[in-house]
């Protein structure tokens, strides 16, 4: 048995632009129905089913919540499964990434908290721009290559924002 589409699970049309509030509301609605707490008294088999279904629901929700994971999921729906790691042929973007990482190192060395806050704002702007670009091209089969490139860029920026968080932890000592 194949698992149903994540979007269908929440009664949503597959799409990149997503009403997060609506998604969250549907998630809570679904979770209420199938959470193991609703089956504390049920048979072992029902408890197991509730556990499995809740786990899939949580997985679907976390995939759709994140822009980069949602992008990846959409591309996989429309085409072949995408390998997790590939050699990225995107020299300009990679160069820019290296510069951003160097900047981050400098912020670390100078323990510049205001600088980190500003860096975060810039990162957010860059992410929003990427999301916009992806939203207009992912559904166009002729622009598949572009969409894949944008999705990989999103993943890079995710990693970068993870690194910003780690930097904040270190500066918090």
């Amino acid at each position, binding site marked *: 048995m194949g698992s149903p589409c994540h979007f269908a699970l929440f009664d949503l049309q597959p799409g990149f632009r997503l009403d997060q509030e609506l998604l*969250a509301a549907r998630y*809570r609605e679904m*979770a*209420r*129905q*199938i*959470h*193991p*707490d*609703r*089956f*504390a*008294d*049920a048979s072992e088999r*029902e408890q197991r*089913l*509730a*556990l*499995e*279904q*809740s*786990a*899939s629901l*949580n*997985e679907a*929700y*976390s995939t759709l919540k994140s822009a980069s994971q949602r992008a990846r999921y959409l591309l996989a729906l429309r085409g072949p499964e995408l390998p997790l790691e590939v050699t990225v042929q995107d020299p300009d973007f990679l160069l820019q990434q290296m510069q951003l990482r160097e900047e981050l190192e400098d912020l670390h060395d100078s323990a510049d908290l205001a600088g980190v806050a500003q860096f975060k704002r810039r990162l957010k702007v860059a992410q929003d721009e990427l999301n916009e670009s992806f939203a207009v091209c992912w559904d166009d089969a002729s622009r598949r290559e572009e969409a894949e490139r944008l999705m990989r860029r999103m993943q890079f920026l995710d990693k970068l924002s993870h690194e910003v*968080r*780690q930097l*904040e*932890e*270190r500066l*918090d*000592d």
Partner: protein
Amino acid sequence: MALLQIAEPGQSPQPHQRRLAVGIDLGTTNSLVAAVRSGLSEPLADAAGQVILPSAVRYHADRVEVGEVAKAAASADPLNTVLSVKRLMGRGLADVKQLGDQLPYRFVGGESHMPFIETVQGPKSPVEVSADILKVLRQRAEATLGGELVGAVITVPAYFDDSQRQATKDAARLAGLNVLRLLNEPTAAAVAYGLDQHAEGVVAIYDLGGGTFDISVLRLTGGVFEVLATGGDSALGGDDFDHAIAGWIVQQAGISSDLDPAQQRLLLEAACAAKEALTDSPSVTLSYAGWAGLLSREQFDALIEPMLARSLKACRRAVRDAGIELDEVEAVVMVGGSTRVPRVRQAVAELFAREPLTDIDPDQVVAIGAAIQADALAGNKRGDGEELLLLDVIPLSLGLETMGGLMEKVIPRNTTIPVARAQDFTTYKDGQTAMMVHVLQGERELISDCRSLARFELRGIPPMVAGAAKIRVTFQVDADGLLSVAARELASGVEASIQVKPSYGLTDGEIARMLQDSFKNAGDDKVARVLREQQVDAQRLLEAVEAALLADGERLLDADERMAIDAQIELLRDLMAGTDGLAIEQQTKRLTQVTDAFAARRLDATVKAALAGRSLDEIEE
């Protein structure tokens, strides 16, 4: 939909007949039991009207005392009176020894790795001691509510790991309780607070108890309590404040810190009394063993400042993990007796820039919340028709050991439970038929810095070349936060699985330290990780070269060539024993270069043989 049916029609409870269920806060210092009665959740009192049961157990040869009486005997009979047993739950003997001088008991090893406390009634495990506390609460509940309990929700600190949760569940079973759910303490507090205040939005729960500290950030939406992030620092609690004051007394009085168990108890009791007095007075007079002195609130504040700073750091981290900013937190709720310390309240107020809420008694709020959850799980409908749903997270990342002693995360911390996630791995050597699955919990990259939860072996993998087998390891965490792991080779369908039941553990401090170190040492980790990767690469190459030499060395190499390769192998071996990653990397490259021609010749030979109609396998033979 059959799935939605909670009870079989024949088994449905009679209308208006409530099924009796309780919430139990099994605390380090104090324990409580609460139940929903007439739509109101409240703690249940004993015959003397006392709600709080000190978590103290004294063993006599023929009977057991629990609570105030036992606590009062702690300094007179320190070896047979167990306090703060929660700090020992799910721990191994070696871990407990690390707690060292803080504990006046005599420990003995049992059949499992669990530590046993030697008492006049024989050896007692922490699980048994906890069960003795739970039995008293169960009896109290049955006497008060007038019937047998359907079950109980037992609370645990949010950062409790798998073995500590398992130990708690075992203790409840031993006490004859049906565990409906293990519930995280800050989540329980959020339920009590949220329903009481009809709160919506983002709430932080600051829970500083006797021996444990938790911070949880939740979003409350129409009866749904969604934990966004949780964190803890278990080297923190009222007990640690007492130890700080005790250390100060020892220093001021100029007495030896080498005290016998009875003296140690008396000193801690004096320290605890002083701490409590300082909540209402600006200073307190202390006397101990002929010495007397004055401790001001300012001095006390200074003593606890480093601990307080650590708790605030954990708060900032949890807020970051929740993906929000500090000013988006709309309410802060104080939980745990130690939040009565004025400096604690002040510091939390400063951090969140808002006055923390103390509307519900910080000692009772956890049990009150647990009772509400227990009532719902037992199938009783809530009066206001609003159904409750708690969505909690795992506090520490779960993962597997990969090559080179590294931890590969399968489920990151703060993932909503229940969760199931799979990761694929492959074999490392040609013809490998078994694979060790080593399950870990923690945030650091090296396995030696994480907690080992379980190990099991997947056997019977059909022999294949290295990298050809596809082994899928699936992690499943249930609503109690308990983990089970299964491994399966996809081509052959060979399976192995385990319910993770670790029999040993780390100290509270170690878990907290694991988390803290992972942030502090992110830099060091990276260096260590790079080194491991270099060592693994080198090892791989060595094994490949040696296998090739064994197969074709004689046939395809002359004596000089062979000597040159052997010399480079020797050099690489020497370097691999050291920690110079760069040198290892360079030597790995050199060995690759010097074996390049050999590899090319082997490839040629293979191609020729293939053209001659022989299979690759025959050439490998």
